[in-house]
């Protein structure tokens, strides 16, 4: 899976939580929660959904690495088999 495909999975997940926003406008270094007004619980739901889609478990200890779009895509890219 290349980065664009991963990004598309991420966007689909974000549209479930914040359908009013256009995730394609996110900058790579922007904090996703802040940019899209997603609360802690919404972000948790989003990451759980993402784990189901990609098979990549994201333990809470790693959440700081996935706060930005760039960080999240890199994190997944390194782990998707």
């Amino acid at each position, binding site marked *: 899976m290349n980065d664009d495909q991963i990004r598309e999975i991420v966007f689909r997940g974000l*549209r479930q939580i*914040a359908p009013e*926003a256009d995730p394609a406008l996110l900058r790579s270094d922007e904090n996703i929660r802040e940019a899209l*007004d997603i609360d802690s*619980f*919404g972000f948790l739901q989003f990451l759980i959904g993402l784990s189901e889609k990609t098979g990549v478990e994201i333990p*809470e200890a790693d*959440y700081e690495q996935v706060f930005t779009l760039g960080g999240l895509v890199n994190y997944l890219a390194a782990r998707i088999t």
Partner: protein
Amino acid sequence: MPWEPIRKNPDTWLLSPQLLDYGRTCAEFTWDGVRRELAGFPGGKGLNIAHQAVERHMGGPNQDRLAMRWLGKDGAVRDLTFADLSRESSRFANVLVKLGVGKGERVFVLAGRIPELYFAALGTLKNVSVFCPMFSAFGPEPIRQRLERGDGCILVTTLRQYQKKVAALLERLPQLKYVLLTDAPEDLNGTVLSLPRLMGAASSEFVIPATDPEDMALLHFTSGTTGLPKGAVHVHNAVLTHFSTGKYVLDFHPGDIFWCTADPGWVTGTSYGIIAPLLHGITSIIDEADFDAERWYRILAEQRVTIWYTAPTAIRMLMRANFEPRSRFDLSALRLIHSVGEPLNPEGVVWGERTLGLPIHDNWWQTETGGIMIANFAAMEIRPGSMGRPLPGIEAAIVRRSGEDTVEVVAPGEEGELALRPGWPSMFRGYLHDEERYRKCFVGGWYITGDLARCDGDGYFWFIGRADDIIKTAGHMVGPFEVESVLMEHPVVAEAGVIGKPEEIIGEIVKAFVVLKDGYAPTEELRLELIGFGRTKLGSAVAPKEISFLETLPRTRSGKIMRRLLKARELGLPEGDTSTLER
């Protein structure tokens, strides 16, 4: 399964708790005693929260102590001594004077936990104006309602919040004189001004005018079942409760480092995130960032936090994260953990003991009470699942309505409404512009809280549920009516009914049932559109997270939505009494 009580042995502790003998402290307690302890305003000028919190420490040993350590989300750290807070809040008070804002006028803040929020809060109190915080995750609609109903004349906010949510509202808020932007170097126009510019030009000296203890100080909005949010009015005298609860419940001692994780947009974040620790001259940790398990444990360890006041939602998210924090973080400085916002389940209390080495002390209060009313105390046995026992100076009871204007206290163990004997200093003095609603809260000499509870034979109170349809999500109250009204504004929505759907981590999630107008089909696309619509109008803190479509909503014959029935159906529970249902 009954949970074993958690017993304490304070005689063996290095630091003796402020409240050691519950019965004796209650028996000897008087509010006059607290007033004397606070020393008051010199020269008989009354009582002012900001004087007690900040000015009182000037010239004394606390002057150069750390009052707040602010942790920015990007890793920045800003240390503020009591003297720094005094200067910055004086500057803000002088800004208000310059802008013609006087006593009793409402100053709103819409911002995350940035230092300016704290300067504005204390500066507003110094000027005897009224501080009214709003949660930064509110959307335009809750913001407009609060500014309008609260007669906001000043709004302090950030450029981003202003552009995204406020600019389009200005036309509809004629009483709003100025918007002060915390991060704009220059004024945008004649009414949207740069706060840094104004602060830079303002003097750091300010003499607090005489303040009557009954002068309005704080305005906190809270949701009701019907109608729009209510503004609960608090006065400067509330500082007596802030002080005594800081002492007896939170157990502040000199040198403590305290972290209240609540946002000042809610009452906990003001009473305990700003005021109470300052009164005691101790250090507060302020974290700008949102919840993150790893970050939170790191803060507890690195900042050597001794007393931590947090909430069940955060505790349950930490439980879910399933760390063994003590293997990676040094939590040895931590002495006491408290929780508030909604009842903490016994599993949470015990998890604290097992995972953090300390049980979690739940306590109970609400926006209207202004401060903690019922609590588990450091030295007292915890019965997991119980909110604890009333504070010294607070009389609580479980009552049942016995007539139009009368109630009776029920026997121990029986369910009823949790009630408090009016008259404590931080009791709300009214709902702004809504005298009737205020009056209805008092029956037969009691303030009726709206919570259902019971009291066991030893005086421990146990929460049962709400007496109304108010939703408690992530510790915040959301009124179903506010959400329904906004959904109804969408062109395809004919009707909407909103409930709190039980959820393991955040207690309840806001769930909406929507009936579409004729000609519209319930599609996934439309569901997402409505979720987005709710978020745009209400913001993530209030908007429904789930939406289902229905053909009709159950209503009573008089036309009221039967939310109780919606909830029972959602949960697959018995529908109970449906005799008033319109068929």
